[in-house]
């Protein structure tokens, strides 16, 4: 059973983490509802183990790791449901009208799984490369290389010149 203090801490923590979690899993899954579902389920797992998770160096990192694993399981079990979103001739929001930057959204969705995970943790979860490395259980150098590859692929997909900078 949770201590009263722990419960309060969890409430504060999860409400603070929610926006980043839902953004991360939405971008990782390419599906708004699924992203929300994964975020909620990952938080429920964290709540269940809050005594232990709250004492971790990074409760958030643990939760993101759980969420990515949940997403992997979901893809395994409900692939047809995901594919239904790509239906032809059926109003399933195929253009992702709720996304402003559809071109980038599609480019991220086209990244290999590992690169996509690194990108969403880096940009949507707002993690440092070291935190991404810890979450994905790989070396920091691997994350840097993976992100470089991902950026190169995204630039290629977006036809953005290498090293382009904003004025």
């Amino acid at each position, binding site marked *: 059973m949770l201590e009263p203090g722990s419960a309060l801490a969890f409430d504060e923590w999860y409400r603070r983490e*929610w926006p980043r979690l839902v953004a991360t899993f939405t971008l990782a899954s390419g599906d708004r509802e699924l992203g929300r579902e994964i975020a909620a389920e990952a938080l429920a797992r964290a709540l269940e183990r809050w005594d232990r998770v709250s004492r971790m160096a990074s409760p958030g990192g643990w939760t993101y790791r759980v969420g990515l694993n949940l997403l992997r399981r979901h893809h395994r079990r409900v692939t047809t449901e995901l*594919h239904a979103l790509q239906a032809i001739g059926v109003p399933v929001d195929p253009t992702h009208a709720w996304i402003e930057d559809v071109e980038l959204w599609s480019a991220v969705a086209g990244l290999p*799984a590992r690169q996509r995970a690194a990108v969403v943790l880096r940009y949507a979860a707002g993690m440092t490369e070291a935190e991404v490395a810890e979450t994905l259980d790989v070396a920091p150098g691997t994350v840097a290389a993976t992100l470089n590859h991902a950026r190169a692929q995204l630039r290629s997909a977006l036809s953005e010149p290498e090293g382009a900078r904003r004025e």
Partner: protein
Amino acid sequence: MSDLDDRLSLLADRLRTNDAVSRGELDRRMRKARRRRRLSVGSIVALVLVALVAGVMSLRDPGHARSVRVVGPTPPHARASQSSIALPSTPLYQQVAVVDGHVQLSGGFGNSPGCSSTVVDATTLRLGQVSRSNCNDPATQGVRVGIVNAYVPKSNTATIRVARTERRRDGFSVGPVVMTYASLSDTKPVSTTAGSWLWIYDVDTTNGPELLQVSAASGVVVNTVHMPTIYRPVMAANDDGLWLGPSVNETIPPVATVYHVSPGSAHVTVALGGHDWVCWLVANGHDLWAGTGPTCVQQTIRRFRGSDSRLVFAVADHGVEPNTVIGNETDGLWTMQWVPPPSAAGRLAVQLPQEIVGIDPDTGTEHVVAHLPKTPFTTETDESEGLVAGQAVYFHDSLYLLEPPYQPGADLGYSTLRRVALSN
């Protein structure tokens, strides 16, 4: 900062929303996860106890040891021959089925649209040419009629249409909306086909809990039945109609265990009373096999016959804890289990063996028929579910199994197709 970094950050910002789920919703999910975990832990305890008893008995009577099995006697084909092939990462395969007399794998292409399918040479396991098709085409899943989910933009509403194979046109058609439901975390429409009918159920339609009986030939709804509230149903259909009950993941206490709706009937009847959960259902012809219990560790395996749900047998499960069972009277009933069922209690990156278990359709007796190589079980968030839908199929005295569920370095798709020959 580059344009790309800016755009990524902006995209992420747009996706951040403050409409967090309620604490009550998280509490409910947590209770459900705990219930699943208790089942897993309970099954390990049960297996250990049974194994200890078996060990003690074998010490007292060495001649008895061979006859003491956790899940019943081992038939001659326990040493079933096995062969396997590695599956490619492109396309990714997520389901095996028997289609038009062939073993067929189907899946997707990862991040590009469309579904893939290929026929497997049953002798060599060699994969045939890859076909790309629309994922809504029921033929991709090896059926002639299916449902198409569509989410209404900027809402929690979703719709279901019926897709039918149009053999004359060598394609398929999608009909009008037949069901509108609230797409929430607690709702998930389920469907199944048998004979001339497609059955569709959801708990939160615009008309409340509702079952549709749809003609597989025309796609027309021929019957609508108001149903009991079941958030997480297990469903199966045969010539006598539709059978469903609350799964172990159900969120409200069950009022009855298995319900039945006959084709054309406007009413639902109770086929099996009590307040148990349904662990699995297999329906075929005029038979229904069901694993039910207060938990799936304490299952009772039953066979019913006919539309009046006449009980043929009821026997206790002996530690197999089936999650999904495939088969029928002719082919036998089959499931797969982890050994032991992995609990979430700190099992990280372990590899565990699996067993193929046969369930005698005439008696409910369980027996191990094959042992499979160890398979990675990646994290503590994976649950001991054993066989899942679409993972295995029985064909010509062999089981064709997909495992493990991940490609090296990737997320989706099985990486091995294994054939377990069950005849000597």
